[in-house]
């Protein structure tokens, strides 16, 4: 995938890009496997015993089993195997860094080439989506209730497992739709929204109530949850992108990457980036998404500014490659110092400073230090912040939970917090420098938090009985 032909064509300059053309840019980039491709690839799987791919999957999907089912024509069973282990397995089929996980562990790396596990997973789940399959049923009601705060991957996953165990589950979701990152935070050309919403509907079909547009701590009090439910899952993820802490941040033309991506998934695409020069600050996966998003919204030039080097960036290799192919430029060891605007308050330039790497800091990465006198000015129209996300400290404190700079402390076995009734999972417990905050990890934590609650509540029963 290279630049789109009409971007190279000067004729479009100054003209409004057609809506449909922009929309085409946001269609899913990777095609799914055809039936025959899936059959051939599935048959190539060795069907290992005690397969390393299973161990490499954070949710432990029985990968050889689901692939065998594709080969035998039992695609529904295949989708069930996937979704049983990973309630957001359709999204993960698209966003997992498979070469670091299942595909990286495939034994065929040592002989031929690894199985396209992600693509086969997508094939099976796409089939289930297309055929409107309902894959699971709720367990027999056990009379207990659980509130799940946050309907992202971790929250949905815990809700699904709790519902299967017979709990009456209510998800409190601040947004208009559940699904969290998968619904709002990953660009449509990599993860179309309907995939995430299908997963949400699967969970609804188990009788899970989802109260959308309901922000806990604002629309409903924390105490209400603590009093009215037998247990609470805190799975609120992360908030907006923090301030850069440099002058000019409030100028017209400075965006929050998360908000920008969300906008492309919830509103008609606009032409306001057409022909613009964009810089994205940060080099994580969201920064890449914001950059490729800008290219596809018609930006003339998109640069990623990162204060460290390629070695320290947190974006996956395949994301980085994807961005390069979209024509995104990378400026390593470059940090913004000041955003400059014109008299109307519109961004015109960004002043940058060159960096060099010093000693490793707390998270083990070498600390970037500004090179004195290396400042330079870059003309830009748009600055997109993608330097991570804020934590929901206020809410965590409203729950009265022990935390470390917004990272809720949990028992790693049970996911129980300092309040025995409250269990936490997903980004809200994700510690910097402790692996990667992957959707698939959040999904697994959601499952484990559900089992933690089940043990906690059934133990309480046996103790009182």
């Amino acid at each position, binding site marked *: 995938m290279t630049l789109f032909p009409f971007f190279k064509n000067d004729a479009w300059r100054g003209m409004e890009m057609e809506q449909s053309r922009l929309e085409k840019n946001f269609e899913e980039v990777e095609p799914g496997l055809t039936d*025959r491709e899936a*059959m*051939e690839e*599935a*048959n190539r799987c*060795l*069907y*290992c*015993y*005690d*397969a*390393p791919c299973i161990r490499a999957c954070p949710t432990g999907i029985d990968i050889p089993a689901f692939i065998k089912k594709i*080969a035998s024509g039992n695609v529904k069973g295949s989708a069930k195997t996937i979704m049983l282990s990973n309630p957001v397995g359709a999204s993960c089929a698209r966003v997992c860094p498979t070469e670091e996980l299942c595909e990286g562990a495939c*034994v*065929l790396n*040592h*002989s031929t080439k690894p199985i396209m596990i992600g693509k086969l997973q997508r094939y099976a789940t796409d089939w289930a989506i297309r055929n409107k399959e309902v894959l699971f049923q709720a367990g027999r009601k056990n009379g207990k209730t659980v509130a799940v705060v946050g309907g992202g991957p971790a929250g949905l996953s815990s809700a699904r497992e709790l519902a299967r165990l017979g709990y009456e589950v209510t998800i409190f979701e601040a947004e208009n739709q559940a699904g969290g990152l998968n619904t709002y935070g990953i660009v449509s050309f990599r993860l179309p929204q309907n995939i995430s919403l299908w997963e949400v509907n699967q969970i609804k079909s188990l009788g899970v109530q989802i109260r959308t547009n309901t922000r806990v701590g604002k629309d409903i009090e924390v105490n209400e949850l603590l009093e009215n439910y037998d247990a609470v899952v805190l799975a609120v993820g992360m908030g907006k992108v923090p301030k850069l802490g440099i002058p000019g941040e409030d100028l017209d033309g400075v965006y929050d990457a998360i908000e920008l991506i969300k906008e492309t998934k919830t509103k008609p695409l606009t032409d306001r980036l057409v022909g613009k020069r964009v810089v994205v600050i940060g080099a994580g996966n969201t920064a890449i998404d914001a950059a490729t998003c800008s290219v596809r919204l018609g930006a003339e030039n998109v640069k990623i500014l990162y204060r460290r080097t390629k070695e320290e960036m947190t974006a996956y290799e395949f994301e980085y490659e994807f961005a390069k192919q979209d024509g995104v430029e990378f400026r390593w060891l470059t940090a913004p110092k000041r955003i400059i605007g014109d008299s109307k308050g519109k961004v015109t330039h960004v002043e940058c400073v060159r960096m060099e790497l010093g000693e490793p800091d707390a998270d083990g990465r070498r600390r970037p230090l500004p090179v004195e006198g290396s400042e330079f000015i870059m003309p830009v129209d748009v600055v997109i912040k993608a330097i991570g996300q804020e934590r929901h400290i206020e809410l965590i404190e409203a729950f009265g939970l022990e935390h470390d700079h917004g990272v809720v402390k949990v028992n790693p076995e049970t996911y129980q917090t300092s309040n025995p009734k409250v269990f936490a999972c997903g980004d809200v417990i994700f510690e910097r420098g402790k692996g990667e905050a992957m959707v698939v990890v959040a999904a697994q934590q959601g499952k484990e938090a559900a089992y933690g609650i089940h043990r906690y509540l059934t133990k309480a029963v046996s103790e009182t009985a």
Partner: protein
Amino acid sequence: MADLSINLAGIKSPNPFWLASAPPTNSGYQVQRAFEAGWGGAVWKTLGEPILNVSSRFAAISFNGQRVMGFNNIELITDRPLEENLKEIYETKKRFPDRAVVASLMVEPKREKWHEIVKRVEDVGVDGLELNFGCPHGMAERGMGSASGQVPELVERQTYWVKEVARTPVIVKLTPNITDITATAEAAAQGGADAISLINTINSLMGVDLDTWNTIPHVAGKGAHGGYCGPAVKPIALNMVAECARHPRIRIPISGIGGISNWRDAVEFMLMGATGVQVCTAVMHHGFRIIEDMIEGLNHYLDEKGIASVMDIVGKSVSKYSDWGDLDLNYKVVARIHRERCIQCNKCYISCEDASHQCIERLVDENGKEYLKVREEDCVGCNLCSIVCPVDGAIEMVEVPSEHPPMTWNERQAALGRLSGCSVDIKSL
């Protein structure tokens, strides 16, 4: 370049690859295209009284996504007038005088019918005749094909009738739909056949459609058994060829047929006693052009082995094919897993554990790395682990010295018999 030419009971061809009597040899146009591509000979689609065919005739089965592991047909012999076929045979032979053109024949089991057709086809210059006693469907219901071929007396008698008038070599094509193919092969030899060809297709039903519950293929909702061929039948055919080749009373050349898809298959059949081979399904699948690799591959093989003529390999493995009772009970092989090649799919482990003798262990070395090891003292040398292993050379079957001298079951029984004072010679039983 080795000499690839063969002489099968007097029928000569520049290479051992003939097209079998089947859809690819239905017309002069096809056979000439095949000869242009390099085929050494062709057995014309069976001639006889023209028949009527049904529509929806072929079916194939896939294996793990690979097409045409096995193939089946319910097509009958030629449906074109005899005169037309004879004219095209004449033209083809005239254009390609160095190639073997053999007429496959099938008529009612009547002496005068055989005499008549033999004379007519020999008049147009064929190099030999092949009597189709094998076709398992349609013709059999009319007393021809395998209906004749399953009865040794009928095979012998009809071969005899043909030999009464034939001036060219006569090959008898045998059906595998019989308990012991050497019985009919011997009958053919008794009747005076100059050679036998085998195998014809095997009775088969290719499948049942899971949605319509119809047979595959079906003709207006009804199916009938067809003839099975293709790569899946090769081991069955190879055994039958070998059984005939090693039979002391079948001393005529063999034309090998059955799942031969490439030069390697051809070499195997020739080593097991075939003087040449006939191919059909591989051509149905890929076209005549496969001959280029067949000729080249065979040539390279012979050159590498330093063999001057392909005829020199004919039958070289026959003496190695025997009865179970003649196998050495004290011979021992064990599996050995080469760690450096193993990719740890654990396929060998689970197949040994669940289906063989539980002698592969999953171990962890001092560095915490997992590996697999065969407990050789418990290994019976079944080969299963090396069969399921997906990596070449990761599992080797190693010969281990035996504490005992070789002894076959037959020798053992004979020895036991001697010990018990019984003088029965087991071998003569």
